[in-house]
């Protein structure tokens, strides 16, 4: 019985595949951009703006005549934040949709689940997820647009050192983002030298009070500044407890809370804290000489006009991913996968919203730590420090 069903299913699949093939021969024109994103589910705050960005810019590029005289076609699946679904969809994009390039993978989990299959099939893949592991060590076909948490840690510690703060009290969430950030911070501090982590506390994702941890850090000998690496509402509670305890030390947060939503939650308690963030939060205060200024301003105004909702840093990862893909295809002059991959690897000085990309065979992310801007909360808004 079961065998019969599988036989029938495979027959059906063969017919369907043949049909698809016929279709793709008929419409040989469009360049197929595949994507799997977490549009629904717990990571929808990532996938939703990413999909909107891809849709709107594919439309825009097509209106302007497409790429290499061919139209773009977006083939998209929603993995709902589920890694095994992401893997299945990646396989479908490669085998049945036969896409030319993949831009997607909202979370590190989804990305890493799809990577082995993509590496094996040999399709250029631009991931939109953050962790260092995606491009370290370098994988032949895998690229990514967001900065890694390691760069955030570098940026924060450098800023601390420049202010003469060398004894850091660290508090971090126990979730994936916080614990990875904690590890990177400890590692960077060790390599950088001249800066020391003197306290190391954690809190759970659903904890509602971090006063005890902060009291501990405050009472640590010689502590000069406090850094919180975390995601979600936890950092907002830390910020509030910080103010309630009347701690006067300079306070740093990670890029995980670099959003207007965080300011709303933390309110006046956030006054004076610093964090690394995308220039997208402060397009107006970028100096005219900044090459990113026009790019950032254009993306923000176009996105907000089209979707009538606030632009997000995560959507910008998709914007950069799509533009890198288009640029690589243009440079390669075809959609030949090997040629596109080589072109992608050699992109230099591409100015995106997230930063300026300089790809190389040893660096498939192409960003430097200083693509993060240090912002300070002043009068309830973001202020660019450097």
């Amino acid at each position: 019985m079961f065998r019969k069903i599988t036989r029938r299913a495979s027959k059906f699949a063969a017919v369907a595949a043949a049909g698809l093939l016929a279709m793709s021969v008929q419409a040989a024109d469009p360049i197929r951009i595949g994507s799997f994103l977490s549009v629904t589910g717990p990571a929808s705050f990532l996938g939703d703006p990413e999909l909107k960005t891809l849709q709107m810019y594919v439309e825009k590029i097509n209106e302007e005549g497409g790429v290499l005289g061919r139209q773009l076609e977006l083939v998209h699946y929603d993995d709902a934040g589920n890694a095994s679904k992401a893997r299945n969809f990646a396989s479908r994009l490669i085998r049945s949709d036969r896409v030319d390039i993949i831009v997607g993978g909202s979370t590190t989990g989804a990305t890493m689940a799809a990577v082995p299959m993509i590496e094996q099939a040999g399709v250029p893949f631009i991931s939109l997820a953050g962790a260092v592991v995606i491009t370290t060590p370098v994988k032949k076909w895998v690229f990514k647009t967001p900065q890694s948490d390691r760069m955030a840690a570098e940026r924060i510690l450098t800023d601390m050192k420049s202010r003469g703060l060398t004894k850091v009290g660290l508090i971090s969430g126990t979730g994936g983002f916080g614990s990875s950030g904690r590890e990177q911070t400890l590692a960077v501090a060790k390599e950088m030298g001249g800066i020391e982590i003197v306290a190391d506390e954690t809190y759970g994702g659903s904890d509602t009070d971090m006063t005890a941890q902060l009291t501990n850090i405050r009472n640590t000998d010689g502590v000069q500044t406090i850094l919180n690496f975390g995601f979600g509402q936890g950092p907002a509670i830390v910020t509030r407890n910080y103010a309630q305890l009347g701690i006067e030390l300079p306070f740093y947060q990670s890029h995980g809370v670099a959003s207007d939503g965080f300011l709303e939650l933390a309110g006046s308690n956030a006054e004076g804290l610093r964090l690394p963030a995308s220039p997208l939060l402060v397009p107006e205060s970028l100096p005219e000489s900044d090459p990113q200024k026009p790019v950032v301003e254009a993306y923000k105004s176009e996105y907000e006009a089209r979707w009538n909702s606030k632009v997000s840093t995560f959507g910008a990862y998709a914007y950069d991913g799509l533009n890198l893909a288009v640029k690589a295809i243009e440079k390669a002059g075809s959609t030949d996968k090997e040629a596109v991959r080589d072109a992608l690897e050699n992109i230099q000085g591409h100015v995106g919203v997230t930063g300026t990309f300089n790809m190389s065979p040893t660096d498939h992310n192409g960003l430097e730590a200083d693509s993060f801007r240090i912002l300070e909360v002043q009068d309830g808004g973001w202020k660019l420090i450097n």
Partner: protein
Amino acid sequence: MFSEFLQYLFTGITIGATYALIALGFTLIYNASHVINFAQGEFLMIGGMATVSLTAMGVPMLLAIVLAVVLAGVLGIALQRLAIAPAKNADVVTLIIITIGASIFIRGLAQLVWGKEYHVMPNFSSDEPIEIFGAVLNTQSLWVLGVGAVLVAVLVYFFTRTLTGKAILATSMNKDAARLVGIRTQVVLMLAFMVSALLGSIAGIVVAPITFTSYDIGIILGLKGFVAAAIGGLGSGLGAVVGGLALGVVEAMAAGYLSSDYKDAVAFSMILLVLFFMPRGLFGAKVVERV
């Protein structure tokens, strides 16, 4: 040194008072029906979220609170009428599973209606914390403690002095006998669900300025409340209060003196220890099963 200790104590008592209020909700329904209502955390969430969204619509704070509490009460009745009552002859275990289903349903609905963001609720009074011997106490903590104390007093009065309260107690002791003396046990059950929903939502509202609120806040708070109720002895009001406070203080002390990594582990091993030596909890009634 002392100020440190005091700080952990304040933290612990505040969060413990929250656990105690949730534990009381568990106790109430357990008393009336021997069901552990795992949707208790959702009442908490409904209270906080409804208040936040109503104030955002321009309703004055006090009215928003009243409306949110009423909404939770209606929801409590609906839960009993629509989910528990139709399965009235089912085992207690089945009923418990139904409440888990209901909690998932309510949470999903809240996510659809209110979205997934965290929301902030302003403190009831001043934002300036009070300083006592070098430790700081948030004014909202006083509200939590005060409201908690008033609710406990009202509950004690309700169960010992009013006919309806006594009817609930009677139903919990022996359902059939209660029915024989003319108590409408279905109404009593409905009442128990309503009162515990009211209790939960009030708890949710007073703690929302401290914890923030979102559609999924009820999961972990509900679980901690259940732990508190079990430590205190399911069914005992005093036990719920003592269990909640003890859990909160132990958590805060563990985070302060031991390591924040083991804070939750300490809390959950506490339930093991207590139940190991006192299987009915600290204040659990000694029940003799008649055969």
